């Protein structure tokens, strides 16, 4: 297990270095933000040159990268052009709100998907199965911002039940979290159903029934436990989706998290902030994948990492 973790950690570090390098090069491909922003603001060429020199944008890109990269190790993630402060501080201020949204959303995902998937699997081809299949089919096709708009209309405008914007009230999290949860819940419900149905046809399940175990015990101990592995895989994938999906959902509901910061940083060429967000998100994705692997070995004693 120790060697396994060490190897995983090595790959994680390599991945992060490549991600940082590629984002850095990509963001600097088309000139620098200073010249463009200041020229638009009516600054003279001398002023622009001065600002570029002050912020280090006049040096060759490899030099800039080494400087940026070494800075990362002492916690210097660059400066936000948009807000003026250190990029890391600005990103970390917004991060808790996104994590909160994602956590509430994850709970909703499980609360929707598990009952739906189990109900559909109980009688494959039955009416519950067909309803779950049809509803999840639609849910997998509705863009989150369209669903969000529809929820705003119904619960915010027509029924006036829930807040539709910002994070001022405790109930404000409900609509964005639900919007974010619908897609992963539909994916998860389908995989739970497919996995349960597949395992249910296996010989050891028939053996369990033949031994005269109650159906509930067979389902719980034989079917559900064995059906869990693909479910955990998809859950891991969907959790990484939650991070990406949050960018969009936060825009719909003006939720003050990383998503809104991402779009504003991109449209104002605030590169250091974009860079920091990409790095933080990549760390999050790697962490989720690692936890998924750990969950495998907990669920399935046959899986041992070495």
């Amino acid at each position, binding site marked *: 297990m120790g060697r396994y973790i060490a190897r995983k950690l090595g790959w994680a570090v390599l991945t992060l270095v490549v991600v940082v390098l590629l984002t850095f090069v*990509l963001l600097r491909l088309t000139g620098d933000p200073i010249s463009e922003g200041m020229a638009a603001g009516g600054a003279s060429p001398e002023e622009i040159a001065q600002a570029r020199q002050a912020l280090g944008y006049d040096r060759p890109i490899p030099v800039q990268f080494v400087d940026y990269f070494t800075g990362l190790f002492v916690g210097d993630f660059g400066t936000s052009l948009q807000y003026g402060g250190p990029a890391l501080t600005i990103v970390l201020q917004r991060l808790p709100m996104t994590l909160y949204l994602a956590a509430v959303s994850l709970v909703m995902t499980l609360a929707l998907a598990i009952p739906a998937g189990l109900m559909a699997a109980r009688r494959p*081809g*039955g009416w519950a199965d067909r309803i779950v299949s049809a509803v999840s089919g639609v849910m997998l096709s509705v863009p989150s*911002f*369209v669903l969000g708009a*529809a929820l705003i209309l119904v619960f915010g405008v027509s029924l006036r039940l829930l807040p539709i914007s910002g994070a001022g009230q405790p109930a404000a999290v409900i609509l964005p979290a639900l919007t974010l949860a619908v897609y992963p819940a539909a994916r998860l419900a389908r995989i739970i159903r497919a996995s349960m149905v597949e395992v249910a046809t296996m010989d050891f399940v028939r053996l369990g029934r033949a031994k005269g175990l109650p159906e509930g015990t067979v389902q719980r101990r034989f079917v559900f436990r064995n059906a869990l592995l693909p479910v955990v895989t998809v859950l891991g994938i969907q959790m990484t989706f939650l991070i990406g999906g949050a*960018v*969009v959902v936060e825009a719909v509901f003006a939720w003050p998290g990383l998503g809104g910061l*991402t779009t504003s940083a991109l449209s104002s060429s605030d590169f250091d902030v974009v860079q920091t967000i990409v790095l933080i998100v990549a760390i999050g*994705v790697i962490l989720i994948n690692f936890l998924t692997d750990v969950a495998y070995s907990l669920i399935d004693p046959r899986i041992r990492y070495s």
Partner: protein
Amino acid sequence: MIDITTTTSATTFGGAPTRRARRFGRGWTGPLAGAAIVLLALIAFIGPNLLGSTSAQQIADAYSAPGGQYLLGSDELGRDILPRVVEGLRYSLSVATAGMVLAALLGLTVGLIAGYVGGRTDEVLMRIIDIQMAVPQVLLVLVIVTVLRPTFWTIAIALALSAWYVFARVARAQVLSLRENDMVAGHIASGLTSGRIVVRHVLPNISGPLIAIATLEIGHLILAEATLGYLGLGIAAPAPSLGSMVAQGQVALTAGLWWPALIPGIAITILILTFNGLGDWMQHTFDPRQRRAR
């Protein structure tokens, strides 16, 4: 390490062991979705010639409800929503298809090489995919499009770069299983070059699953393009993108005016639904492993 890619593709559309349900669930969804796609494509590519202007403004008619003079209503500038949605459909279909083709070209090349050559090459190429997976698709597309400035082709390229690995993985997995096949071994024995074997004998054998993946990917890329438009980072303003229409329409939602946001929204949903429906159906029809599982 365990290979989990095969299980994750096993999402089902309906799916039932009873004969009645199989006939009901499988038979019609695919053809129906296919017909809907043809119909939508016809509307999208012929419609703009028949309908009125997408930019004519009648400020006096701003926010006309659907059903009257304007079949699908009008927006905040009094522009007719119907021709704008049709134009948006055309744009959405074109850019997603272009992105899919580019993604398939890149992904197939990488996947075939990785699967056929194997060894070190395979390992490096698969690691590149792992690294890319650490950045969510939305974020990747947003960054690329912002850097390259949004035009039709830069958006198509960004979409392709966000989706190529799906093709690479499928192609690689299929080649790996075919490589051990007697047919390929026979061709190697008879002295055919690798390139010829891949193009003439491997590619046709894996085309079924690839067409299914391509269909599903068009759906995903339509969503990605619409998201770009919604976030205001898509194609520039006068061109009607369905996503940006939803964003503009959302302002009026609080006044209970639903059509400027939800009509383009419904159009995107229907478009994605048809590609998902056809793709899922094809995946079941073409994938013998899944057929057996039922």
